[in-house]
């Protein structure tokens, strides 16, 4: 096989892996949007916050150390202990659940029945707040996150493909793990929403708030639950991206990458998020590989949006979105 084609296949595979990571973030959006009609811009910052908290707990950092030092003139930074990854993950989950409760109690409960755009703006405010809060709590320097996930080139695939084509594919172990975890997460979420009592309540709320209320489903409880699950998904996404490229501000920008994924897949569809993620992932990598050199590179910044834009002109509800029916 010609080298160029092999390159293209390798790029496609890597695009698929990247797409899975996009899909992971998009999932969090879809969950909240389905259950409460809120387009949660803060999802990316939630991933950043989760990753920051995880690193902070693992390294035994004192929360708000820089703030305390500035106010009281002390010089404290760490408790001086290390927490094992698994315990830290559980603790971070607890923090994300508390956060979900706070969001519901102090923000969303007061905004019931407002227009969607107001709710959207509120989540942007939330994103700003959490970004500043996370930095205040744990410091803004770039941190290394290592929870023991395998990293680096996968030798088996390299050797096997070398044996077949005389060219070894470069595929990161982390991407493979991410794919597996994302698949498990999606299947788990589907089982949860199909078969568990809470999942059914969740779907009922998504269908019709008032009808759900009238059969005795607590909206407050469901929304806290949904934000907690979104926090959990954010944590998983945060771990993956944080391990890949360090825990830093740019992590929150993956939310922006997830938006075109959502538009492609439709805001209300979990499979849509996955398929959209894969299309965007492969599309932008291939475009950068084939067309990028001709137009000066770095096309990844906008390709996903333009693709989604063109796509929407022909199918406004996205691939798997519910048909938009409008009545006067």
């Amino acid at each position, binding site marked *: 096989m010609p080298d160029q084609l092999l390159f293209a296949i390798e790029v496609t595979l890597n695009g698929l892996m990247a797409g899975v990571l996009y899909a992971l973030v998009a999932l969090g959006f879809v969950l909240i949007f389905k259950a409460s009609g809120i*387009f949660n811009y803060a999802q990316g910052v939630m991933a950043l916050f989760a990753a920051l908290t995880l690193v902070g707990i693992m390294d035994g950092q004192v929360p708000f150390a*820089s*703030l305390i030092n*500035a106010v009281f003139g002390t010089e404290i930074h760490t408790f001086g202990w290390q927490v094992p990854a698994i315990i830290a993950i559980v603790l971070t989950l607890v923090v994300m659940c508390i956060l979900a409760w706070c969001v519901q109690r102090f*923000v969303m409960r*007061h*905004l019931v029945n*407002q*227009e*969607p*755009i*107001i709710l*959207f*703006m*509120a989540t*942007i*405010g*939330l*994103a*700003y*707040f*959490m*970004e*500043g*809060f996370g*930095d*205040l709590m744990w410091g*803004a320097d770039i941190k290394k996150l290592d929870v023991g996930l395998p990293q680096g080139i996968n030798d088996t695939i390299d050797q096997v493909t070398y044996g077949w084509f005389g060219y070894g594919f470069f595929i990161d172990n982390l991407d493979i793990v991410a794919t597996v975890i994302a698949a498990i997460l999606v299947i788990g979420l589907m089982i949860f929403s199909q078969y568990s009592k809470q999942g059914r309540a969740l779907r009922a709320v998504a269908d019709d708030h008032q009808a759900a209320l009238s059969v005795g489903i607590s909206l407050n409880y469901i929304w806290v639950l949904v934000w907690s699950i979104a926090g959990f998904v954010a944590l998983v996404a945060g771990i993956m991206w944080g391990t890949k490229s360090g825990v830093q501000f740019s992590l929150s920008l993956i939310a*922006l990458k997830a*938006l*075109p994924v*959502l*538009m492609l897949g439709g*805001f209300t569809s979990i499979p849509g998020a996955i398929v959209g993620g894969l299309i965007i992932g492969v599309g932008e990598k291939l475009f950068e590989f084939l067309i990028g050199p001709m*137009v*000066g*590179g*770095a*096309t990844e*910044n*906008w390709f996903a*949006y*333009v693709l*989604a*834009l063109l796509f*929407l*002109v022909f199918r*406004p509800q*996205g691939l798997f979105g519910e048909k938009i029916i*409008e*009545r*006067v």
Partner: protein
Amino acid sequence: MIYREAGDFSTTYEADSQTFPIRFDRYRYYLVLAVAFGVIPFLVNDYWANAVLVPFLIYAIAAIGLNILTGYCGQVSLGTGGFMAVGAYASYKLMTAFPEVSVIIHVILAGGITAGVGVLFGLPSLRIKGFYLAVATLAAQFFLVWLFNRVPWFYNHSASGQISVPERTVIGVPVTGPNTDAWAKYLICLVFVFACAWLARNLTRGKIGRTWMAIRDMDIAAEIIGVNPLAAKLSAFAVSSFFIGIAGALFFSVYLGAVEVGEVFGIQKSFLVLFMVIIGGLGSIFGSFAGAAFLVLLPVLLKNILVGTLGWSTDLAAHFELVIVGGLIITFLIMEPHGLAQLWRLAKEKLRLWPFPH
């Protein structure tokens, strides 16, 4: 006691339908104009012009532009930063290509070019709406910034990739470049703000503004009563982008002088202007000014308090500022989703009746 319409009789239709029908409002408006044009230019110094007044005026133009699109026509846009970049680069190209033409004409032409780009990116709004459209306008944001970053023609092949403004004068007084006085910067921005606000106010209360509002309130119903959605939506995009383009051109040429597109006109700028519109009040020209003033003053104030008085380090203060801004936005949305303009309206209602409760 002073804010009354009693004794204020309109004898012509013109008098009845003017922007400030209450005499007190009208005199207050003239007073504000007199102070802005006649007093402040003599008092302003470099710090006030650069830190507060000039950014306030320029953001007010951008906020008016976005308010026309989002507040009046109901099309949410997250591409403001990108459109401002179009204005900036268009004015730069024009200024370097035709140095003999007045800078004022260049700024207006830059607005016109931005209007064209805005219409182009507004085309999808005919098919998609709401969040889908908001995300679609992000395509404009990222694509335009990338374009200005990557195509050397736009920055005249300069080695740094930046654009920096040449010195231009209006009636002999430099208004761009390093030799500009604070008052000249302030005054040129003020003239543009005054013209834009006047234009916007009169557009929005005329026929075209009513078609925008009809589309905003319910587009299908508007279509049925004979509003052409194509014309209404695209004209909203055009007018909005025109103002945003002027804001971008002024931001580059008068305020900053040199621009690196990714830093200055990034996605953060889009959000900032959107916040101004939301906090100020959707669908209100006064709200655009109030929102711009609020979000320009707040960081300055916080920085003075935290860094100046309490002696915190700047990055700590920057994080704290994010928390405060985010918290304030949420608080505002909860307390008064219609923004500062609504508070102003309520205050005026109360004043009219004062000292009686009803």
